[in-house]
């Protein structure tokens, strides 16, 4: 069962049924799922949640579809680690990493697609679709395969090889589109409006977005049922950024944690930074941008939740950083070298942003900070391949090894 009651416009509060709707017919505001909060509070307990399998369906009362019949490929409940080495490097002794590279298709998109695909099947859809710069396409392809549904995924034709392969292996209908970002976006909007398919981030977006809340639940549970003091989250559409805080708020409303005082800070790439730019200008209206960054998973020039991200930054006393491509690569390497985590470019954006915000005094060293790493590095290997040290090339003799080892860079002979 689910405690979801209806959809509600975030702007004008009009109610709609739990159908494949995503925008208010009157004011065009986004629709969100509304729940029976009292029912949830009466039903959940820390003990019940902790006793369930280690995936996102352990939070079933807070989700908008039936967990018993859901499409479950094991998304969620990824590691939260105390990043002592990275924290030492950045002057943040209480820094934690939420490592969402550990999801089934190696990104946090498995959370949102788990919910969207399950709800789409409940609504009678047989095809899942999306337009993606990689991670979302991977996850839609995998979930459709597991559910026996058809998948149609549309991607730009200049994606990293790892992200293309990460969809192809599940045998979806893979559509590579030639053309600039705006052209791809326009085509996909038209397809979403004319095909009777479940476009996971369009017509079933209210359910899709709920998946991101589970990151908030997990972090609170993994910290011993408390909210962090400060979260640093990459901002693409802004949905993840907003929903993590919503998850913390819902846990408090259900009596599972104290009222969160969590500050929410954002991380963007300079080459696509509509939210960070508006924030720096003190504006609550962002201007859409044409993306030009190696962080393609964050390359959303006109973010659907951009305005709400700015509101949240303001309401929680957060800050928003933007970092350039060199800083992104340095951030990927720093995370790998200090914590053994190989993140994709978006992770480099997050780590570099934590560094920038800490150096600027926007993160207090005493705060318990959680940085969200949302995708794995092998998907964007091209970004760092040229900046890594070479291997020692030797003959199969001890002498050859010793000569090469003694001469290796940075080690005195």
């Amino acid at each position: 069962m689910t405690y979801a009651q209806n959809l509600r416009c975030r702007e004008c509060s009009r109610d709609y049924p739990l159908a494949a709707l995503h925008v208010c017919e009157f004011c065009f505001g986004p629709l969100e799922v509304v729940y029976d909060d009292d029912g949830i509070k009466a039903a959940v307990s820390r003990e019940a949640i902790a006793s369930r399998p280690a995936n996102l369906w352990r939070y079933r009362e807070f989700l908008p579809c039936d967990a018993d019949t859901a499409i479950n490929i094991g998304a969620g409940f990824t590691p939260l680690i105390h990043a002592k080495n990275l924290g030492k490097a950045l002057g943040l002794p209480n820094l934690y990493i939420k490592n969402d590279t550990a999801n089934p298709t190696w990104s946090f998109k498995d959370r949102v697609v788990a919910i969207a695909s399950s709800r789409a099947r409940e609504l009678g859809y047989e095809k899942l679709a999306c337009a993606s710069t990689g991670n979302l396409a991977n996850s839609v392809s995998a979930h459709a395969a597991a559910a026996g549904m058809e998948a149609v995924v549309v991607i730009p034709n200049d994606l990293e090889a790892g992200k293309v392969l990460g969809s192809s292996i599940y045998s979806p209908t893979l559509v590579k589109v030639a053309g600039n970002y705006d052209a791809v976006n326009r085509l996909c909007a038209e397809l979403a409006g004319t095909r009777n398919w479940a476009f996971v981030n369009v017509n079933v977006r209210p359910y899709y977005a709920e998946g991101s809340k589970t990151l908030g639940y997990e972090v609170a549970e993994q910290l011993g049922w408390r909210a962090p003091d400060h979260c640093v989250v990459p901002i693409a559409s802004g949905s993840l950024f907003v929903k993590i805080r919503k998850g913390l708020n819902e846990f408090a409303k259900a009596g599972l944690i104290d009222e969160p005082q969590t500050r929410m800070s954002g991380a963007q790439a300079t080459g696509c930074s509509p939210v960070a730019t508006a924030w720096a200008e003190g504006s609550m209206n962002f201007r859409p941008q044409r993306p030009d960054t190696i962080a393609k998973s964050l390359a959303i020039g006109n973010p659907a939740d951009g305005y709400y991200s700015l509101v949240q930054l303001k309401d929680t006393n957060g800050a928003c950083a933007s970092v350039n491509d060199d800083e992104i690569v340095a951030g990927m390497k720093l995370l790998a070298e200090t914590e053994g985590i190989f993140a994709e470019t978006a992770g480099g954006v997050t780590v570099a942003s934590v560094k920038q915000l800490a150096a600027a005094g926007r993160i207090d060293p005493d705060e318990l900070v959680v940085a969200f790493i949302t995708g794995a590095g092998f998907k964007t290997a091209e970004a760092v391949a040229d900046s890594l040290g070479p291997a020692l090339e030797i003959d199969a003799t001890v002498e050859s090894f010793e000569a090469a080892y003694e001469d290796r860079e940075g080690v005195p002979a």
Partner: protein
Amino acid sequence: MAVQRLRFTFPTDLIKEPVIYLIGQQFEVITNIRMADVDESTGWVILELEGDTDEIARSVAWAESRGVRVDPITGDVIEG
């Protein structure tokens, strides 16, 4: 016949131009302003365009050629 809802964002130098009127004049498209926020320097309009799909596409291409930015009303459809 199709209906598309699009967000038109106007740069400062187009604020005084009757772009929406001209769309209705030059193309077989019915324009319906659903929401708008326009001041002396910038502005956006959420516009419903009703007509043949190709004619709507031509009218949008014309607006873009004049310097108007045209986006889906819900933000980008493509995601990471």
